[in-house]
């Protein structure tokens, strides 16, 4: 089916040694570049590549040159309904295997007054895809660094740099509240 070519799969390409790759998906203006720069500032032993996309599916021109995506980070803002729609659409174009601990949902703008959506909606979305939910504000530097650190640790686990720890192991220790 045509959609098969467009879905992202984690095991297409061989992993490169000492390299990890992170994909950040989110609508325009949600803070992808700021977050990526913050993640890159943290010193690590391997070389980290961050790619940003404003929506999936990824364009097919560079499909061959793209390395294996270890971790996908969906960013959305509670003040921007469009970003939520973009994320919802992209979620269905990602292979199932990414939801076993290789993806997460970052939500910004929780403290703002102009919220366009409910917190319930956001948690429902995260629960329906079993995504770990991370709240943070990309605009404030301290929160941005904390957010970057969390995403980096998740990426490291997903890329296999932590011995004996697989993303599924981390995922299964996550607290899931059933409604």
């Amino acid at each position, binding site marked *: 089916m045509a959609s098969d070519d467009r879905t992202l799969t984690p*095991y297409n390409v061989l992993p490169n*040694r000492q390299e990890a790759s992170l994909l950040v998906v989110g609508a325009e203006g949600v803070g992808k570049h700021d977050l990526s720069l913050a993640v890159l500032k943290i010193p690590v032993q391997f070389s980290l590549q961050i790619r940003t996309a404003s929506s999936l599916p990824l364009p097919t021109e560079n499909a061959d040159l793209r390395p294996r995506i270890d971790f996908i980070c969906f960013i959305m803002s509670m003040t921007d309904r469009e970003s939520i729609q973009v994320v919802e659409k992209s979620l269905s174009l990602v292979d*199932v295997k990414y939801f076993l601990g290789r993806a997460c949902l970052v939500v910004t703008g929780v403290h703002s007054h102009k919220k366009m959506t409910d917190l319930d909606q956001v948690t429902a979305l995260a629960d329906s895809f079993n995504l770990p939910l991370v709240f943070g504000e990309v605009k404030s530097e301290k929160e941005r660094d904390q957010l970057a650190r969390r995403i980096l640790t998740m990426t490291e686990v997903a890329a296999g740099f932590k011995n004996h720890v*697989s993303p599924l192991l981390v995922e299964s220790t996550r607290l899931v509240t059933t409604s």
Partner: protein
Amino acid sequence: MTSSREGDGTDQPGEVTEFTENPDSETAESISTLKAACEKTWADVKQTQEQLRQCQQPQSTAHFSEQQPLLAILREKERRLRAEIQVAKESRAHTLPNDTEVVAAALNGELQKKVSQLRETKSLITAQLQELQASIEKEKQFEQQLKAVHDKLQEKCQALEAQEPAEDALEAVAQELETKINAAQKTEQTVMKKMAAFVGKHFPVPEQAQASRSSKELRPRRHQTSQETLPLKDILLELMTKCVESPNDPYMALDERHWPAYVELLLRCNIVLQHPDDDRRIKLVPFHL
């Protein structure tokens, strides 16, 4: 070591880099053995990848029912967990090659890592300890302050209980007020009497002839005598009553009974004021304000 991850080449390249610092013939041998092992593992990885690619079918969550992507995810999770458990059971422990150099280097690296980690922990813990001590000190001071306040309050409570009951105090205050009122009333009466006497003596009732003369009538009217002109005392009394009793309407309307001379006198002495719109009305100047 086989892990659930598809490839694992990250351990051994790290060890190789440590060796390049002391080139030696023995170490050269160890290096070559390590390199061979590395390459073998990498070949395994590639083979596994090929196998994976062949039997792989990318499924997006949209393939399953739209309302329940969670179902597909959980199913996939179950499969993978089973696989990981199986791999963990079957995998044997990874042993380093028997080469002493390799073993020594590996151990050295591990020890250094542990030492640096422990150093970090130590600094962290000392910082926490200091913070805790500072907070303990603060809490102790706070406790002392609160104790002092508590003691003072208790003293005050006891002092209040030892005093006479409050009911008598109220009665005493009431008594005082009553005496004050009586004294004030007495003074008022004496003052009024004195004033009346003074005014009556120096400002008598004008005779009818004078009153009729000042009015500009050519023929004295018969009805003029029906109302007698008021003595100044009465005018003053009425003004004062009006001023005190009805402060929102202190104006008194002037009549024929009021001798205009007296009115003029009061006006000139700034005792009364005329109403701004109506000349016939006058009010007492509020001296008490």
